[in-house]
């Protein structure tokens, strides 16, 4: 690995030193040529655009032409292919951005957080992509408006207006969805979408293996309502609900496991575009999960949940100082209801053991202010501060000032930014699962489990080669993290009458560091992305003298995506991903106790699974027909093949006794996806 990493650095250094020249700072997707006083612009239909600062913007409609996982186009699956973004293998779905935990990545709909927006097995996210107008992904650099999270941010923007009826219907092999966008009179518009799955019927056998049987289904519903009060004022309402049900039966064990989780989000917003642009919203977002562990005639229920109700607003003030200074500010006030993981039992004995669920109701308030000042024609300074206060359970109260500073230098053909900032997070997510499943529970900051903190130094270099339609982004970061929680308890501890989650959470500190390169060709018949990155996440926990590898350690990542337009009706695409195997805790030795094989493990995350790689292919046929009332009706047929060469990516590794109890053997749980075909039909209108 050292050689390949060194090679990567040589490549990055070469790229840095090469006098690459472009001829404009506009994103390549917006082709823009200045002819004296005249500017001609045309917006392309590329699925994604690489923005300055390494942010990505996704066109949800165009994404439907690319690789689909089991018939569904999904923004989160596309984000997962970026360098420095990893998941805990195919079973894990949460986005770990630049070495940050899944729970440190903020996912939002209309600026309202969604707590666990993931499906099982990396199939796709809970976000029904066609429902949204666009999505934006930001890695590390955030201004003061970033809410209290330490990692990346993925924002879904709903449609703000609907000029004519439209929508889409997607029929796939595991799920079908429909989205309808309707103007309702002159001022109202509504967008409604729903999706249901039927995975077990067609894919149940494919998802299961010789030793395990998986059943899984989900459904989600989105609804948005817009009301244009006048030219400067708009009201919007947003609703989102998602439900997942998962069962897992391992033939080695009598124990069966089931998970059920759901997200609910409701928000109302007022958007004002006057001299002082502003947006105010009131919202509720909730997530609940229940884990069932079942033996014949016995069951343990392990529920947990978090809900958040609040108000928030953002202001954007008119330019000052001759147009060189713009100011923004905002506020948030939110109350949580956090039910920490507990257990109840059934059929366990005459008496029920376990403890009553603990419910915490902390309150978090935050104000921020920031400004962007153009120091010169080329140098821009963005500075701001986020002030947050938190009244937690018991006597835990906290106040933090998080300053952020970004200096951006316009090189004439791109930009170079340096960012320095402090970040705070009052929410933790910990649990028993190795791969960040929904059973990992949320717990709000409290005595003995204070708010997480991060200090970020990040550099970003963006380059636009307009003539070639190529955008390049190079990011390097060092992030010091403190108060990182890790769950050290065992599930049997839940049966203790005096169980307390805090007792089983240890705190660590450490740092994430890495470099990511993204090269994106955004125009022409062939579009695509090549991304490579290398990062480390190092942690120090009590009881260990040295640095440990964090479970979020991204290691080496490489991806190459291409989308080729063939004639006027065909698009073919491919997506290749190569990454270091997931860090895991290796077995050191085993022995027999009471007839069972017991395994002793080494240092946490001190080994890696084998190299992960996978090639997905897709072909999309589309036919456009004009509509009587304007616009077009598009028919799409998408064929995708996931893991086209059948790579057996190992997700988990355990040692078990064979059925006769004579030998022990390695049991490897592999990726769910091998040679997995999908066919879907989409009607867009």
């Amino acid at each position: 690995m050292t050689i390949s990493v060194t090679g990567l650095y040589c490549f990055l250094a070469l790229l840095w030193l090469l006098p690459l020249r472009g001829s404009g700072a506009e994103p390549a997707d917006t082709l823009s040529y200045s002819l004296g006083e005249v500017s001609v612009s045309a917006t392309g239909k590329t699925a994604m655009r690489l923005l300055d600062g390494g942010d990505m913007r996704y066109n949800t409609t165009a994404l439907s032409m690319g690789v689909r996982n089991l018939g569904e186009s999904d923004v989160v699956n596309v984000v997962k292919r970026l360098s420095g973004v990893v998941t805990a293998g195919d079973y894990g779905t949460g986005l770990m951005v630049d070495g940050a935990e899944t729970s440190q990545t903020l996912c939002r709909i209309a600026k309202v957080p969604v707590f666990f927006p993931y499906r099982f097995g990396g199939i796709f996210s809970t976000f029904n992509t066609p429902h949204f107008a666009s999505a934006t992904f930001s890695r590390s650099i955030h201004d003061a408006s970033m809410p209290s999270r330490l990692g990346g941010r993925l924002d879904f923007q709903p449609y703000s207006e609907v000029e004519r009826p439209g929508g889409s219907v997607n029929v796939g092999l595991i799920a079908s969805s429909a989205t309808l966008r309707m103007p309702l009179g002159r001022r109202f518009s509504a967008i409604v979408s729903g999706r249901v799955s039927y995975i077990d019927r067609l894919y149940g056998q494919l998802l299961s293996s010789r030793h395990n049987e998986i059943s899984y289904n989900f459904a989600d519903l989105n609804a948005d309502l817009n009301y244009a009060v006048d030219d400067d004022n708009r009201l919007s309402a947003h609703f989102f609900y998602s439900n997942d049900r998962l069962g897992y039966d391992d033939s080695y064990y009598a124990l069966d496991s089931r998970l059920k989780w759901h997200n609910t989000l409701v928000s109302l917003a007022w958007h004002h575009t006057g001299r002082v642009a502003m947006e105010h919203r009131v919202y509720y977002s909730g997530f609940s999960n229940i884990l069932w562990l079942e033996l014949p005639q016995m069951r343990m229920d392990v529920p947990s949940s978090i809900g958040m109700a609040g108000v928030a607003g953002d202001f954007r003030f008119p330019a000052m100082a001759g147009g060189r200074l713009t100011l923004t500010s905002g506020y948030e006030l939110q109350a949580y209801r956090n039910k920490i993981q507990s257990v109840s039992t059934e059929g366990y004995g005459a008496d029920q053991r376990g403890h009553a669920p603990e419910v915490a109701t902390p309150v978090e308030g935050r104000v921020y202010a920031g400004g962007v000042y153009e120091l010169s024609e080329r140098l821009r300074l963005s500075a701001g501060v986020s002030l947050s206060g938190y009244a937690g359970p018991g006597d835990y109260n906290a106040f933090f000032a998080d300053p952020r500073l970004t200096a951006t230098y316009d090189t004439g053909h791109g930009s170079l930014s340096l960012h320095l900032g402090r970040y705070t997070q009052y929410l933790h997510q910990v649990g028993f699962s190795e791969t960040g499943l929904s059973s990992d529970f949320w717990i709000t900051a409290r005595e003995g489990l204070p708010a997480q903190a991060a200090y970020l130094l990040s550099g970003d270099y963006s380059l636009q080669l307009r003539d070639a339609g190529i955008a390049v982004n190079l990011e390097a970061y060092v992030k010091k993290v403190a108060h990182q929680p890790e769950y050290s308890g065992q599930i049997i501890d839940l049966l203790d009458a005096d169980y307390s989650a805090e007792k089983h959470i240890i705190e660590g500190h450490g740092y994430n560091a890495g470099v990511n390169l993204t090269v994106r060709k955004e125009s022409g018949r062939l579009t695509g992305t090549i991304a490579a990155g290398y990062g480390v996440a190092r942690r120090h926990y009590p009881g260990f003298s040295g640095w440990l590898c964090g479970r979020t350690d991204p290691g080496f990542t490489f991806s190459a995506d291409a989308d080729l337009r063939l004639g006027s009706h065909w698009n073919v695409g491919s997506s290749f991903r190569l990454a270091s195997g997931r860090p895991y805790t290796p077995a050191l030795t085993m022995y027999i106790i009471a007839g069972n094989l017991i395994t002793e493990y080494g240092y946490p995350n001190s080994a890696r699974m084998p190299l992960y790689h996978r090639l997905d292919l897709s072909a999309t046929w589309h036919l456009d027909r004009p509509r009587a009332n304007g616009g077009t009706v598009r028919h799409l047929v998408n064929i995708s093949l996931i893991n086209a060469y059948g790579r057996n990516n190992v997700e988990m590794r355990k040692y078990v006794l064979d059925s006769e109890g004579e030998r022990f053997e390695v049991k490897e749980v592999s990726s769910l996806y091998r040679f997995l075909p999908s066919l879907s039909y989409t009607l867009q209108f």
Partner: protein
Amino acid sequence: MNAIKLIFITLALFPLIAGCAVEESPEVPVVPVIEGWIDSDGYPVVMFTASIIPDEAGVPLADKMLRWAKVTISDGENTVVMTGGPSDKYFPPFRYYTFDIKGKPGATYRIVADYKDLHAEAICTMPQPTEIKSIDIEPIENNDTLRAATLRFDAPTDCPAYYCVTIKNPEEQGRALPAMFGTVEVTMPGQEVSVPLLHPASDLNDKNFVPQLIVGESLQVSLNRVTPEVYRFWREYDNIVLFGGSLFVSADNGLKGNIAGGYGVWSAQGVSSRTVEVK
């Protein structure tokens, strides 16, 4: 600009430098493993095996039984060399035993086991036993063949006290095995404590495992009062055996035993037993 470039390059190089700093797991040699017990008013049994390193996948477990070891037990007054012998009622099917020392509450027992260059020893003091008050067996709704059973006892005056409930099917097993969810810590003297009586879970039971008692079974149920170290060991064992098979929970913390020089547990335990006919 040069300063900015320098910072940028330093940032980019940092992960490469930092990447070298992580601690590696040590390689663990083959070490001795002991699972042994001496009951109050009973005789000691020691199962002595060698640990398995991951590279040995496929090696027969029979090769891991240490048949020609020297295992001694002493009660502070006498030291006895235990006899090794095969038995199909144990797994692995070999154990060391002696009838020359009998367990007495309050006594301290030390075992020493040697095989070639493998050496392990352990020491444990036997607590006073606590009597089983009752074992209640109830029918399970809509099930004619299974029964829900509960063991009850009164907490002793010298709390905290630690217990491990074991079950033995004398027809099939030469030893008692820890009952599922059978570890209990008691802190309030005089309190009536109830423990569900469930079959021991085992990898070998595979999918046929049924936790509840089955009509027609004749079982020897024991309430073993153990030391805190032994309680912790069996409690962690329970967690691993029960939940190690779930994709959704990780149960890979290993076991903290009381064997110096190896893994496993040596338990001198105060025992109260009853035979239960499941009807």
